[in-house]
């Protein structure tokens, strides 16, 4: 009898090469650079870090970025669900074009979106001039930030909910109908609960993207200190002042939030897999 073999046995070749390259590339380009943020923050000392992230201007930026991102993700959840429902359930002329264009915010460079939104909502723009007539200012206020964040987050909700709705068994609704449930009750008790994990995931993804968004917001925000400065802009401002530890301190807070969101989103995935037997 030959001795037990401990070397893992693999039929397909290339495991060591591909995994090795993957880990190397990942470490060099992502992990090591990201850890630099925390190292740099640590070398600046706790006091400096705390002073930076609790300074009124930075706190105001947190409030704006997080508040508007939450609001934008919520609005996208509602309208994203309606839009998904229309795309999946109804036939209407141009449906395929609408479906294809949903991904526009993924494909359109953020700077392009930013100047376009500004041109529309600035006081002299198409909609901005209308609003100004009623005394409402949109661009260069927090509402402008909100508009840009809605633009950027929409596809996350639609593209997360869409496959789940497409995959939903028609039999569920047929069963509910055969049991005498009215349409609305069927939606509330059968369809919506099945979509909920995907909807929450889409919400979290849209929120995560919105918090970090820069290009599409920066033109329309007006960047007025304490009023319409987003957090990523604060990092750039600190960098321009050569306050590297200040910049990394804010970045560390944002990264931490990203990790927490990533954790929550993974948790949502596990939950939805357990609940409806598939990942979203």
């Amino acid at each position, binding site marked *: 009898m030959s001795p037990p073999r401990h070397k893992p046995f693999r039929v397909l070749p290339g495991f060591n090469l591909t995994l090795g390259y993957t880990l190397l*590339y990942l470490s060099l380009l992502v992990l090591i650079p990201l850890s630099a943020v925390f190292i740099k923050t640590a070398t600046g000392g706790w006091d400096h870090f705390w002073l930076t992230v609790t300074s009124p201007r930075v706190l105001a930026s947190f409030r704006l970025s997080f508040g508007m991102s939450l609001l934008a993700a919520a609005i996208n959840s509602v309208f994203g669900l309606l839009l998904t429902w229309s795309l999946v359930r109804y036939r209407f002329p141009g449906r395929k074009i609408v479906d294809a264009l949903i991904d526009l915010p993924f494909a359109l460079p953020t700077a392009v979106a930013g100047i376009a939104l500004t041109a529309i909502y600035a006081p002299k723009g198409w909609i901005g001039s209308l609003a100004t007539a009623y005394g409402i200012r949109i661009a260069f206020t927090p509402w402008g930030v909100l508009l840009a964040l809605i633009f950027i987050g929409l596809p996350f909700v639609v593209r997360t909910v869409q496959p789940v709705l497409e995959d939903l068994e028609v039999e569920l609704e047929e069963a509910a109908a055969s049991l005498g449930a009215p349409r609305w009750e069927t939606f509330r008790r059968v369809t919506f609960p099945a979509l909920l994990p995907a909807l929450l995931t889409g919400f979290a993804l849209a929120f995560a993207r919105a918090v970090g968004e820069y290009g599409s917001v920066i033109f329309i925000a007006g960047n007025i200190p304490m009023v319409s400065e987003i957090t990523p802009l604060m990092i750039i401002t600190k960098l321009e002042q050569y306050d590297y530890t200040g910049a990394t301190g804010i970045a560390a807070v944002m990264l931490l939030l990203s990790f927490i969101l990533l954790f929550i989103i993974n948790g949502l995935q596990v939950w939805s897999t357990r609940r409806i037997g598939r990942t979203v």
Partner: protein
Amino acid sequence: MAAATASLNAAHLASLAAPRHYEDNPATRDTPWIKWMILTLSLLFFAGFLLLPLATVFVEAFKKGWDVYLAAISEDDALSAIRLTLIAALIAVPMNLVFGISAAWAIAKFEFRGKQLLITLIDLPFSVSPVVAGLIYVLLFGAQSWVGPWLIEHDLKIMFAVPGIVLATIFVTFPFIARELIPLMQAQGKDEEEAAIVLGASGLQTFWHVTLPNIKWGLLYGVILCNARAMGEFGAVSVVSGHIRGVTNTMPLQIEILYNEYQFAAAFAVASLLALLALVTLVLKTYIEWQAARSARDSQQG
């Protein structure tokens, strides 16, 4: 992390290949006024938030006529911005392509400890703000960093030069191709690869003749989305570029400069090129989805 970008989703492909007719089924049909309300609300939202900005780009670009438009996009700084954008994408996309294939092969075809963690880490760049993505390279290679003095001494420019722009672009487009290929290759299993090996094929032959043809649509899909993001990235590149006109300006940065100088028509002219790229991307993406849906349907027949 779930669909952080568009992806070739099996359920979506299935519904493309065999659309269901919900409106013919009394159990899934909505009453007409509900239908019209939902359709109206969602399409108004769509038109206001997606269609309007897209149209604005082209309207603004041609506001002052063809001549201004042509002059704006053939100006020296614009051309050099276009060149730099192409260079960055030409380096970043192939790098991430090789990485994506390599990661997908390791993850989809083998079992090992920590696989789930690795998948999460590959997705990480998607959840990092582009500004932070730029910042990390400033921290590593900037004048104040550990290697900064050494780089200056040897006259090696990474920050505020092309290498920094390429690095930032690679970072923000890092997961695109990998995350497209991993689920695809996992779903395809390794039966066909094993069959090829039993028949005597080498690893490369197996990959080239068996794996690659099976993942070609997913691969193209990832490449196209990766390319769109690489050419359009603004935040990360803005941090590392230094905004030197004609030298370290990519197209999105050029747009910013023109816009801030109130040259709106010129800014929108350059923007229209990128918007066109976005439209081409969406057309290709839709085409690939239909092709992939077709081949998925074909391979399920019988």
